[in-house]
């Protein structure tokens, strides 16, 4: 694979970038901070010393005007990438989002509108070269309207529907779209929250994601237990959802 990752300097994105680099795939990092990108690229390079050094370029999901240039840089460095992975996004608790509507606007814009725009840029390039792989991090929070993730979950619900439709529309043309729905994973994003049962580790999620990409799967719950958990949640009647705080 020749993969571009946005969000690959931290958390699950970092773990995916490392696993790809260690098995010999070429990786190009996109992110918001030059120094952070440089350090992560150095880390990836050291993990597979025989490969060319990992490249990087600035790209901020809050600034869609920079998407095309960032993907151009990735194309130039990798020589036409064939995989794009999006793990970047914003997260905030429901309390924080309710207290600050501007934050809510930013989060919904980044997680839904701008991520869709980024994916449109990416999938056009991939389709032009006969297809490829697009893996995007949505969330189990998008599976059902739930009290603690009303706003964050709605942004991911929109994203999940978009990704599902992309798969339907372009699968025959060789584009594999993977919608990743992680449950609770112990990363910097969730540090400080109390981990529920079945909380996952980033390395485990990364293994699942890389395998699902290799097998061109359209959807992935990870850790796997969350498929079952969300199946139950999706079927809970409304009067129960009104009562519980999950």
């Amino acid at each position, binding site marked *: 694979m020749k993969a571009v990752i946005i969000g690959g*300097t*931290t*958390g699950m994105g*970092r773990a995916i970038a490392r696993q790809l680099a*260690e098995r010999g795939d070429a990786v190009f990092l996109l992110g918001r901070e030059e120094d*952070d990108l440089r*350090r*992560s690229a*150095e*880390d990836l390079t*050291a*993990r597979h*010393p025989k490969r060319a050094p990992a490249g990087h370029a600035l790209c901020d999901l809050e600034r869609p005007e920079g998407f095309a240039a960032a993907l151009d840089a990735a194309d130039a460095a990798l020589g036409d990438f064939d995989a794009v992975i999006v793990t970047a996004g914003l997260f905030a608790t429901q309390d924080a989002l309710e207290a600050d509507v501007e934050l809510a606007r930013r989060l919904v814009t980044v997680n839904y509108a701008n991520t869709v725009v980024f994916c449109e840029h990416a999938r056009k390039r991939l389709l032009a070269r006969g297809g490829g792989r697009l893996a995007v991090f949505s969330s189990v929070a998008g599976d059902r309207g739930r009290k603690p993730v009303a706003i964050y979950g709605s942004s991911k619900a929109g994203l999940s529907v978009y990704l599902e439709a992309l798969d339907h529309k372009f699968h025959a043309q060789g584009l594999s779209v993977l919608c990743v729905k992680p449950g609770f994973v112990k*990363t*910097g994003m969730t*540090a*400080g929250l109390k981990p529920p049962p079945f909380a996952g580790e980033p390395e485990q999620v990364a293994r699942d994601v890389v395998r699902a990409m290799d097998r061109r799967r359209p959807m992935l719950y990870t850790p796997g237990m969350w498929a079952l958990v969300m199946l139950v949640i999706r079927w809970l009647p409304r009067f129960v959802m009104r009562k519980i705080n999950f």
Partner: protein
Amino acid sequence: MDPRTTPTLTGWGRLPAPGVERLSEDLERITRGAVLTRGLGRSYGDSSLPAKGDDLVVGSRMADRILGFDPATGVLRAEAGFSLFELNRLFMPHGWFSPVTPGTKFVTLGGMVASDVHGKNHHVEGCFGAHVRSLRMRLADDSIVECGPEQETELFHATLGGMGLTGHILEVEFVLARIPTRWIHMESERVGSIDEFLAALGRAAPAFPMTMGWIDCLHRGRAMGRGILMAGRWAEASEAGERGPRDPRPLVMPVDLPNLAINDLTVAAFNTLFYWKHLRRRATTLIAPDPFFYPLDAILQWNRVYGPRGFTQYQCVIPRAAGAPAVREFMDLLTKLGGASPLCVIKDCGPEGKGLLSFPLEGTSIAVDMAVSAEIQRIVDRLNEFVIAAGGRIYLTKDRFTRPEHFRAMEPRLERFLAAREKYDPHRRLRSGQSVRLLGDVV
């Protein structure tokens, strides 16, 4: 606060203290204003725990990037949360190994510096700090400095073995060692008593770069201190062949055993089996690094065998000057006091290093796990009194029960450490449960 719902942190010995970890990949950001940084929490006692009243400590483990590696020189620079586990996984297949490794691979580079860890090769290579070229640190006044053997040396030497009390370690640069294969040539020997043991360790030290021994520390009388000596060196390609060892598949200790699972009877049974499992008096084997360096890492969360009461480790070093009789007397006292576990390890240490509070000094180090009981304070006090009289000292990384007056009595270097602390952290903003206990820091 309700103790049932208050979050707690523990060291490896599982005695809890109220507190939570602040975690992020951005260690530089989260150490600003913080009082303490911990790594993977493998120190046994309270050195990585917040003092009473401080409830937040920084956890470095998400800051785990390699920042550069030069295959020509073996110089590696990485963020402080990079673990020895990852180091081994990534670099051993390419013929590189940590110059010094402690008895577990689940430690961070930052922790290895703060404890100035030693290993089976201490008599040849010294502590980990002897191989460190540079540290990037956040100091108590929030400034960031680089220190090393030729730069800010006072800070550097106070930080080696300084238990994180001189500043937050952000990055570590050190030199990896070249290894010829991924196998160890080990010679082991069944040894009948403590005197024989000391003689055997003395014989093995010049011949082998790595030595250590396991002692049955329940046995008294003539066979007191019987055990198994293990000496090793990296095998040459001609001895080991091309193939590397299989990746270790650790088991997990899934539950806490009851408090009484480790008792004199079960320990005696284990010790007898373990001793006689080594049927031949001498054996030579080719062994993988993992079972050689990290036998206990084969069972994740093995600390649960001691049950919810928790445990501690007593590790001290008796100086060579005190002679073999002092070690024999120590073993006599230890076996008499009881409370011992299957895990008792003896090791020859080489000369003292540069770290102002580093543990090793030329002599014999003995480490023994002990379940926490009503007797534990008395046992540790008695052992400490003996060690003070012998001119030895204890390993802070293992300690939870030493009294401040005992610690002062065994640490002639303490004044220099405190002077460095006075210079870099005059208000003693950086502190841990251990520093409050032993150095009288105030929250």
